[in-house]
């Protein structure tokens, strides 16, 4: 097995009742790689990310994190989730806690760091996303873009091996998207391993090492951004790319 392989999904199948959400999906993620997952809505992208950090469970298949099977029975799932950060479309900050306490909570309650160390680490993560000066603000006092950056800092504080982003900018006003994508691009440059579901094709093109196109519960096609954007092999990929640039390209220009 390649030693640089950090996350490996093998033949994952997920059903909700009789509904097959995705079937037989396999994906290898190299350490430091940024993968952007694109595809129409309802295709199972969110469900796939949730399966990868065990927020929901696959019906069959295996997932390995640094060679350890995390889908094995008896695995400590809380410990696995601690190692896989996740950022959500709707931020999901803890509304009763300041930005600082949002980032500190996992450090004190999960990693059991002493308060002073947790405080220092949390401030460091807030600085990383450019929000050291907002540490004392509550989520309700922050803009959407700032909230999402706090959410990224909260996930980073756990020193995750992989970061999952589920449409992190889809709920943001256009003028706030850039600050979040900027933080994510910075993380990619720092060689964070990232799986990003997004419709931001500019980001995908510039930052991704690999693009995965998913449709109807299958990976239709994947490859380097230039190959996928310039020379898509499948008609469905072409159609989707055409539609998405129509839709979002206009929004970006505004």
């Amino acid at each position, binding site marked *: 097995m390649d030693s640089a392989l950090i996350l490996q999904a093998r033949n994952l199948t997920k059903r909700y009742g009789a509904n097959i959400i995705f079937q037989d999906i396999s994906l290898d993620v190299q350490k430091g790689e940024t993968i952007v997952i694109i595809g129409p809505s309802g295709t199972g992208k969110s469900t796939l990310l949730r399966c990868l*950090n065990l927020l929901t469970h696959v019906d069959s298949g295996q997932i390995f994190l640094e060679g350890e099977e995390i889908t094995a029975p008896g695995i400590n799932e809380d410990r696995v*989730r*601690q190692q896989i950060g996740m950022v*959500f479309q709707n931020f*999901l*900050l803890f509304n009763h806690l300041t930005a600082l306490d949002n980032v500190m*909570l996992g450090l004190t309650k999960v990693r059991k760091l002493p308060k002073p160390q947790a405080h220092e680490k949390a401030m460091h993560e807030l600085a990383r996303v450019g929000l050291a000066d907002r540490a004392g603000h*509550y989520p*309700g006092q922050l803009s959407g873009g700032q909230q999402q950056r706090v959410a990224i800092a909260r996930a980073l504080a*756990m020193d995750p091996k992989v970061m999952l982003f589920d449409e992190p900018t889809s709920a943001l006003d256009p003028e706030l998207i850039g600050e979040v994508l900027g933080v994510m691009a910075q993380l990619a440059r720092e060689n964070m391993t990232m799986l990003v579901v997004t419709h931001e094709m500019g980001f995908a093109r510039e930052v991704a090492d690999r693009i995965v196109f998913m449709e109807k519960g299958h990976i239709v096609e994947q490859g380097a951004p230039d190959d996928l954007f310039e020379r898509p092999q499948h008609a469905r990929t072409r159609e989707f790319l055409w539609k998405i640039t129509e839709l979002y390209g206009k929004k970006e220009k505004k």
Partner: protein
Amino acid sequence: MSAFIELFLRFLPDLLSGAAMTLLLTAEGLAAGFVLGLLAALGRTYGSKVWHALATAYIELFRGTPLLMQIFLLYYGLPGFGITLSREWAAFLALGLNSGAYQAEYLRGSILAIGEGQMIAGRAIGLSRWKTIWHIILPQALRLAIPAWANEPVSLLKSTAVVFLIAVPELMAKAKAIAAKTYDPIGAYLAAAVLYLVMVYLLDAFMKWMERKSLIPGLETK
């Protein structure tokens, strides 16, 4: 009027000791009810099947029957099973159990209103289910519950009046005794009413203060 004031002042020590017992029963019932209500609300929202069923049965039973019947069952009924409670204990237990069933419904509503998202966010950083409930869900749910829950202390305080029927020496029982002694039921009960009003007023003011203290900055207007 002067006759009323004279009666009021003459029996003030009696009335105050009754009011103190009323407040004690209210505080005890509220505290016991809070613990029971929280356990029942958690059972209904996040509990196992058995816990959920027990919580549902408890809530239905105590909201669906009169408080007075619950008091009589505990005080007159339990000795039949070899358990004899003092009047105060019977009153305390009945009020706590009864209030708990109502508090459970307030708390359950606010726990549900916090939503699944906060649970997912907690789990995503590696918190266990119960740690997420404890550190994330409950602190928000309890704040959210305050405005509706704030009716409970006042409602319970007024409910304590029925325990005079098992001769617990609270305000209502004192008023009844004063009425018998002075042959002035109107004066006696009005005197008690004055004290009830003062207590309700103070409780209300306290709840308003708590509501203000518990606001989360940035969320006030939502």
